[in-house]
């Protein structure tokens, strides 16, 4: 069984993003870019399944500019077998990405697609669910544990108020939550080896997908700043302020 792992190149999670002065977006020039953390977890889970003998091949796929090759090389260095880049400079929104991934899934016929639950740039949390819809496959999102059985995946999901175990028929789409695993680091020898692994490049037109955006961003603004308050000297003063100034107790 093949596992398809879509990965996204995003602003590194340690970078404090800045809104551009003209409010057209956030500053991306000279900013460190990395694989989205939830995608790293997805790659790790796919590799673990392959290492456990549940899968034969792990294929990483990314959609976007040429620079996404770096992200795919990271996935290959972690251990993915080969990679596919759907290359475009167009702005890609989740529905368009889901359509591109559906076209790739139709070609590759994986038994499982594992991807991050959301990207830390647009925070959309949509692509996996949309892909499952377009493929008419079941979905198990926000996974904290994945077990494969005979034609089914048993997935423990993070839900409001606790955990849920869902059994989905395969092929299926699984999206990863933070606690699913701790991704491995790529070692130097594996980084070198990754340079020789196959990386195929396609265009959206090759897949017959119209990627035109549906949402127009009118502006991007800084959040309202919260003013620092006062430091109180003791519990007595705190209780007094809460009762008589803030009036919240």
């Amino acid at each position, binding site marked *: 069984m093949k596992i398809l792992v879509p990965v996204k190149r995003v602003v590194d999670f340690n970078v*404090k*993003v800045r809104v551009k002065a003209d409010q057209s977006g*956030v500053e991306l020039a000279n900013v460190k870019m990395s694989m989205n953390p939830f995608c790293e977890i997805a790659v790790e889970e796919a590799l673990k399944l392959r290492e456990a003998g549940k899968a034969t091949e792990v294929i990483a796929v990314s959609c976007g500019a040429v620079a996404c090759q770096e992200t795919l090389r990271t996935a290959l260095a972690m251990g993915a077998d080969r990679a596919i880049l759907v290359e475009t400079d167009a702005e890609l929104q989740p*529905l368009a990405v*889901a359509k591109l991934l559906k076209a790739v899934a139709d070609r590759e016929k994986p038994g499982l697609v594992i991807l991050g639950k959301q990207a*830390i*740039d647009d*925070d*959309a*949390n*949509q692509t*996996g*669910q*949309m892909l*499952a*819809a*377009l493929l008419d*496959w*079941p*979905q*198990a*999102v*926000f996974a904290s544990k994945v077990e494969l059985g005979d034609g089914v995946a*048993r997935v423990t999901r*993070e*839900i*409001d*108020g*606790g955990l*849920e*175990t*869902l*059994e*989905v*028929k395969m092929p299926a789409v699984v999206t990863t939550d933070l*606690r699913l695993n701790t991704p491995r680091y790529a070692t130097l020898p594996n980084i070198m080896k990754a340079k020789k692994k196959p990386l195929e490049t396609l265009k959206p037109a090759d897949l017959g997908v119209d990627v035109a*955006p*549906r*949402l*127009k961003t*009118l*502006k*991007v*603004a*800084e*959040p309202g700043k*919260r003013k*620092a*308050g*006062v*430091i*109180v000297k*003791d519990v*007595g003063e705190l*209780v007094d*302020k*809460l009762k008589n100034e*803030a009036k*919240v*107790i």
Partner: protein
Amino acid sequence: MPALVIAEHDNQQLKGGTANAVAAAAKMAGDVHVLVAGASAGAAAQAAAKLAGVSKVLHVQAAHYDGGIAENYAALVVPLAKGYSHVVASASAFGKNVMPRVAALLDVAQVSEISAVESADTFVRPIYAGNAFATVQSADAIKVVTVRATGFDPAPGGGSGTVESTPAGPDKQQSKVVSQELTKSARPELGGARRVVSGGRGLASGENFKMLETLADKLGAAIGASRAAVDSGYVPNDYQVGQTGKIVAPELYIAIGISGAIQHLAGMKDSKVIVAINKDPEAPIFQVADYGLVGDLFQIVPELTQKI
């Protein structure tokens, strides 16, 4: 055309910010309908009909909607959606699961987790963990939107909508819920609580969270935690407040032994009044706190519990 809100419920009561989603939907369209689907969700349907702004509740009676199975919900909502300008749900675990599936099948974009409605087609939503806010306009005929509950006050009661029985959609039988382990608590639900007491790594153990429980019970508060506390195994993950956990905006948020990492602040900085208790005077949490108290939480918390 009206807006359709997909209700989250436990058959008896509406849950997960459904009333907030109704309030948001009322700002998008003049008229709001609510879909309540479940094995025996009559009581939840009646509750939805009483929300201000709701003119009609579509009540679907079928067991294959229990557990919030996304494939079944999407198959039900998609044919109904053609009669609506907006399809809306709370951005809870349920809404986040179901709504993108609905949007993709309608071939429309989803606008995720909006915090404000500018007009019928323009919405404000946080990006980069709330470090920026994007104003986005949708060109699609049907707008599929999820709503951040803390951005909207829940729709009040006093409405008088009608409840209409609606036929069920297919049972897709692609997935089934095997089990649920829900954290049992007599305290209010974290996402909608008016007061929250949260603990961080400073608590040093799960055992010490008991101290917060006493304080929370005295305040009628929910208990939350930082990701550090969850990762250290002090409390379960559903306590987590932050970018990767729950987004809360209570009237009072008391952060105890929490340093204030960006990812935590993203989940609580819209709270009305923030109190921080931390031994490190340089902790970033003090930059967002209305009232800060520097000191040993193991002395402060019992004293606070006693004096409140």
